């Protein structure tokens, strides 16, 4: 009875873990593309006097959002959040465990809320077809809003799964917490 259930739960964890890494991998590609894009702009401008249109907009409204939000779930998965551990490290194990659970529940709730808010915003901008003027033309910028939705949604799921792990006291197959 318990055997197949464990397999199913681990599979769920594994899928989350894989999705988190793929999203983060997409983010790393964006970091490198951002570097290349800005460098290309600099090189073309300096050598040939050619100005790539819209570099500022692509950097701010595309790359920055992908780079910032796509790794959100990984941040949660690896528990790489910044926190103040001055007081808590002196508290009993049980209290520490409770606080950890509380942190994850709060993360699940607020990230769930942020996903919901970002989804509404993204759909609104998508329907509006939001653009930013660039010289004589305009650049579509609504896709960036969906990076927030994707990052926050997956982070919500990971935080919920981590909270569940603490409640049922079982490894759900999400992998190790900290990479260091």
């Amino acid at each position: 009875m318990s055997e197949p259930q464990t397999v199913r739960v681990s599979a769920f964890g594994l899928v989350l873990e894989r999705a988190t890494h793929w999203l983060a991998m997409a983010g790393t590609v964006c970091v490198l593309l951002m570097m290349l894009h800005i460098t290309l702009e600099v090189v073309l401008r300096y050598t040939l006097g050619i100005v790539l249109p819209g570099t500022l907009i692509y950097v701010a409204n595309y790359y920055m959002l992908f780079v910032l939000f796509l790794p959100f779930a990984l941040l949660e998965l690896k528990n790489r959040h910044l926190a103040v551990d001055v007081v808590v490290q002196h508290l009993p194990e049980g209290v520490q465990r409770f606080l950890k659970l509380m942190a994850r529940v709060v993360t699940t709730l607020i990230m769930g809320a942020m996903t919901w808010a970002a989804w509404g915003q993204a759909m609104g901008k998508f329907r509006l077809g939001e653009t930013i003027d660039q010289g004589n033309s305009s650049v579509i910028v609504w896709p960036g809003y969906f990076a927030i939705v994707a990052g926050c949604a997956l982070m919500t799921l990971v935080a919920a799964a981590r909270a569940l792990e603490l409640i049922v006291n079982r490894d759900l197959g999400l992998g190790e917490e900290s990479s260091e």
Partner: protein
Amino acid sequence: DRTLSYAHGFPPGSDTDKATASLSARIDELTGGKIKIEAYPMSLLNFLETPDGIRDGMADMGWSVPAYAPALFPRTNMLAELNMQTLFAGRTSNLNMAYAGAMGEYIMLHCADCRAEYTKHNQVYTGFTASTNYGLQCVKPVTTLEDIKGKRLRVAGAQWARWATALGATSVSLPLNEIFEGLSQGVIDCVVTAIPELTNMGLVDVIKAIEPSIPGGTFASNAMANVNLDVWKGLSAEEREAMFKAVNAYAADVTWRYEASDRAAVETAKAAGIEITRADEGLMEFSREFATKEAKEVIGKAYAEKFGIENAQQMIDDFLPILEKWMGLTANINSAEEIEKLYWSEVYEKLDRASYGLN
């Protein structure tokens, strides 16, 4: 008694921020302290956030810049984009009050569609202003068609970008805080902007020549006193009347400060040894022809296609005579009080103020 928050994206202590004192003082005086307005420079909402911030009620009122939200307020932007028409005024002074007045009159009195764009975003348009005339600020004098060819110009506006391209120059986007470096390092040759920016952005050290008359135009895409619709509906008729008067005084104050700082900046520039040039007739004529073509063939068509404004050309044809009238009305103005009176008699007084914004 209630205090309305007014959010704007200008730096604390800037001319615009100082003028908010008029807004607060006037509303206090007119309502006997029942309504107060507290201004939040940059700290509550920046320009990009303001339209949505007013919609959601983060601020009760604020300075929306339609140009930063092209899909939300296309009609206002289309009118603002006709600004190179100021080339036909035959002067470079007092054009901000002319253009702002014309936009305010057209939007508030004649263009229900324009107002509907704001209502749809849960806010009411109540005030208008514009920057002073746009000129070329360059590291080398630029006065002829030959001079400008191949130059790299920092422009912020579709029409100026097209003008630059038509002249064989390149338009470059550069963030505000990099203009100084851009100029001193040769990334750009000129900035297309209003003259007071010379001192605002500390450009005195790098700019060597100012050409005040071209490309012309003002930055008029300002909805400087948009009020959250629910807040507006919650005010009594007398309170709304007081709001119109307070915004009128504020708009006049801001507009006059811009004009005064423009005049002062020219003096600063001269004192700093910056050459004030005069574009030759070839460049002027080219620019005027360009502006005419824009108004007749380009801008209306572009907005009709892009934003589905079916009567775009009709709007332009209606607006231009109003602008011409305003360029006449403002020729001899020399104080904020005069602007306040003019705005009141030409716009606010003719408005159905009891019902404005309510339906």
